[in-house]
């Protein structure tokens, strides 16, 4: 795929939603881009990092989302156009700064700033499906949300205009079915010229005298609302006297359009689609709703628009209009918006039979297909260092016999809690939370707490937010073992670089921060081991578990997918001695270690392996209790 600045204006290309957002930013002349990886937002920064030009466009992976939004906001105060991209969970980390930024605005230099936040309705790749639209109300900030990739491009430009005009940052909401959908996009012109950045030291941007500034902010929001009343991306399609109006935003629009087509309701039902979702363009909305006897609100995930629309109806004396949606139970309160959900809600309201699958076919599927379909859970890749690390941890905890308690966080190590993991992590929340929760548990000795406490985190999370928690643990003298699974990548989201990898988002060299030195400088005792040496790793875990103070064990081994990308070959060839293998009687390598390359062959009853999956890591050689597996170095 070509870099997004290579496409000629007027030509059409197939772009991922996140690439469309990035292209829109390029076409509007964005200068300073920051972010932290998180599905489904992760492709925005790399798309722009491919097009950087000194003095014109900078793109970075920041250490965390707070640093990202601070950097972007600062660049806007210096007169630049900036953008920061993250997932919903990351925005939560950045809120302290963001709520103050609303009060100060972006200053007088004419800069603009978009905070792009991508939600993951249904939690396809997330620990929650939190709806970040509430944060626009919470932070008193404007928010926009596109429907298609092409609109995503245009709406970025519009949002920059609003930001620049009102000296206010604008939230731009993405969601999985936009960010990870691909559509044909027609390219616009790319601007020429380089900006001049400088700060205006005659003004102080701070939130204090906050009552006054809050009032100014509320007035600014009304001015933005007045602009939103005219926004060309808010549309109404349908009859003048509709029997019902669907109020849709984001994924709700296309779902509604398809359901109306399927049910043949296009002549009877209006479709009101909102791209400016906060503040609500109330006058425009009421103008289109005042003649509708009933409404259906289609959005994801929470009833955010539904709440705002109901408020507006009550305020305008239209409180008796029937509003269907999540509150009425026509649309479920959780999960993503689909054409099926829109269809079933409309069919119910209009008392039409929704088309369903042929009955005989449904029976056939239930009787002859469904029983064969076993689940395919996520697990670590073949050759993943984490499989070896958690294998060692499992062994160490069992041998230790003091019921050690493991806390974890977000990343590939999270796969431990999935059905095919080793089920060692018992407390897991957010990025770096393993360290913070372990620091709490590690101080409970006076309350009779006697279990050794073990925290795990990844290397990217370590820099992201584990460090201040580790400082807290040292300062407050917790007893804990911090295991850092250092695989030299932000692996789960696609191997983005971070402060420990020695390169930047633009693939230029960067100072490489040493995890061990950082830990030592804080005052931790540091040990380093190779997780592929599983026996030695188990031994060192046992030694460190329950020792006083903050112990750090760094398990250092590059992510197999990163290694393979560079090396292109496997270190070892594996052979299994069918005589020595005990097969189903033992099955330690397949049943317990669960390497995807190893399986019990029903034909022989012995272990076999799939060559196309095996990464040649050789860990199974150490795992096998009967020395049935051997490895030979590859040439």
């Amino acid at each position, binding site marked *: 795929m070509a870099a997004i600045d290579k496409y000629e204006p007027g030509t*059409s290309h*197939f772009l991922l939603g996140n690439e469309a957002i990035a292209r829109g930013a390029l076409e509007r002349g964005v200068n300073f881009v920051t972010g932290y990886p998180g*599905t*489904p937002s*992760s492709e925005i920064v790399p798309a722009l990092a491919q097009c950087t030009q000194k003095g014109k466009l900078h793109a970075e992976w920041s250490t965390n989302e707070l640093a990202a939004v601070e950097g972007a906001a600062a660049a806007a105060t210096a007169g630049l156009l900036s953008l920061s991209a993250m997932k919903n969970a990351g925005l939560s980390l950045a809120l302290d700064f963001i709520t103050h930024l609303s009060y100060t605005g972006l200053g007088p230099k004419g800069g603009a700033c978009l905070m792009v936040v991508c939600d993951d309705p249904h939690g*396809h*790749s997330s620990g929650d499906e939190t709806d970040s639209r509430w944060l626009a109300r919470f932070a008193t900030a404007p928010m926009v949300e596109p429907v*298609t990739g092409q609109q995503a491009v245009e709406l970025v430009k519009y949002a920059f205009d609003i930001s620049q005009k009102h000296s206010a940052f604008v939230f731009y909401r993405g969601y999985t*079915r936009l960010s*990870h*959908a*691909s*559509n*044909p996009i027609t390219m616009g012109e790319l601007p020429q010229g380089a900006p001049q950045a400088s700060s205006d030291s005659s003004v102080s941007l701070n939130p204090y005298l906050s009552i006054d500034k809050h009032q100014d902010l509320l007035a600014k929001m009304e001015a933005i609302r007045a602009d939103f009343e005219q926004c060309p991306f808010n549309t109404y399609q349908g009859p003048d006297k509709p029997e019902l109006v669907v109020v849709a935003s984001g*994924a709700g629009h*296309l*779902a509604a359009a*398809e359901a109306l087509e*399927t049910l043949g309701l296009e002549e009877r039902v209006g479709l009101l689609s909102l791209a400016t979702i906060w503040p609500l363009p109330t006058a425009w909305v009421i103008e289109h709703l005042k003649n509708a006897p009933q409404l259906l609100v289609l959005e994801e995930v929470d009833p955010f628009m539904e709440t705002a629309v109901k408020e507006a109806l009550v305020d305008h004396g239209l409180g008796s209009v029937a509003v269907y949606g999540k509150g009425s139970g026509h649309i479920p309160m959780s999960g993503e918006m*689909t*054409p*099926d959900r829109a*269809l079933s809600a409309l069919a119910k309201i209009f008392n039409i039979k929704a088309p*369903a*699958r042929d009955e005989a*076919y449904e029976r056939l*599927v239930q009787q*002859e*297909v*469904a029983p*064969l*379909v*076993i*689940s*395919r*859970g*996520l*697990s*670590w*890749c073949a050759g993943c260092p984490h499989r070896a690390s958690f294998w060692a941890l499992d062994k160490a905890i069992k041998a230790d016999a003091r019921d050690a308690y493991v806390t974890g966080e977000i990343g*590939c190590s999270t796969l431990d809690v999935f*059905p*095919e993991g080793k089920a060692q992590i018992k407390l897991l929340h957010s990025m770096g939370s393993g360290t913070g929760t372990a620091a709490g548990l590690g101080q409970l000795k006076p309350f009779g707490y006697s279990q050794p406490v073990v925290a795990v985190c990844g290397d990217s999370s370590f820099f992201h937010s584990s460090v201040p928690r580790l400082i807290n643990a040292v300062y407050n003298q917790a007893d804990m073992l911090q295991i850092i699974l250092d695989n030299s990548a932000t692996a*789960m*989201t*696609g191997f983005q670089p971070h402060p420990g990898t020695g390169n930047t988002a633009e693939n230029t060299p960067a100072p490489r921060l040493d995890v061990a030195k950082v830990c030592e400088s804080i005052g931790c005792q540091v040990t380093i081991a190779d997780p592929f040496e599983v026996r030695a790793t188990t031994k060192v875990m046992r030694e460190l578990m329950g020792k006083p103070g903050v112990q750090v064990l760094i398990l250092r081994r590059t992510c197999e997918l990163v290694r393979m990308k560079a090396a292109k070959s496997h270190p070892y060839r594996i052979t299994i001695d069918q005589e020595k293998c005990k097969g189903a009687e033992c*099955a330690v390598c*397949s*049943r*317990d270690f*669960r*390497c*995807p390359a*190893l*399986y*019990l062959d029903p034909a022989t009853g012995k272990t076999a392996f*799939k*060559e*196309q*999956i095996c990464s040649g890591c050789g860990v199974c050689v150490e795992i096998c209790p009967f020395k049935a597996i051997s490895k030979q170095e590859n040439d």
Partner: protein
Amino acid sequence: MPLSPDPYNLIISGIGGQGNILLSRLVGRLMFRAGYQVSIGETFGAAQRGGGVFSGVRISSKRLYGPIVPQGAGSMIISLEPLEALRMISQYGNPGVKALVNSEGIHPVAVLSQKASYPSDEAMSAAIHKATDKAWLFNATKIALELEAPIAVNIVMLGGLVATGALPLDADEVADEVKASVPPHLAELNLTAYRRGMEAVAGA
């Protein structure tokens, strides 16, 4: 050229890492260039860790559809793995659905940990044929391994798709697109994979 049905809902499924995203984008680009509206929906991110992944490619001569394929509305299922084909059939199948399936199975980790057993090739093949209007099953992995390029399974499948005639795809234009989508030193290999896929399905 009119599509039947329209929208034509192509489901492309497999296991993370098999290259089904590239395959869906190749098909999407080709159909877009042929003048159709195309929308692809994917979920990826954590899904590459051994889980099942699928894309919905929605093609229409009428308008742009959303990326989510409605339940039971699949027009054709291309699966890089047979168990995933069955999973897609149970969700998106209907009496008119077609299927193009790589018959080489990949065991879920639940099978390794002996919590579930993997269905036999015969059972999967029988169910796929029974629950589709027409199905093409062939071992695309074997072809890719013969070419010493296990990663090329998706391109073998693309060749298979062209041979089914299910979509108005011109064999030479597809070959050009394959060539343009891979690094130059891999062009010949991928073109061979593409041709072998076409032959395997045409001969089946």
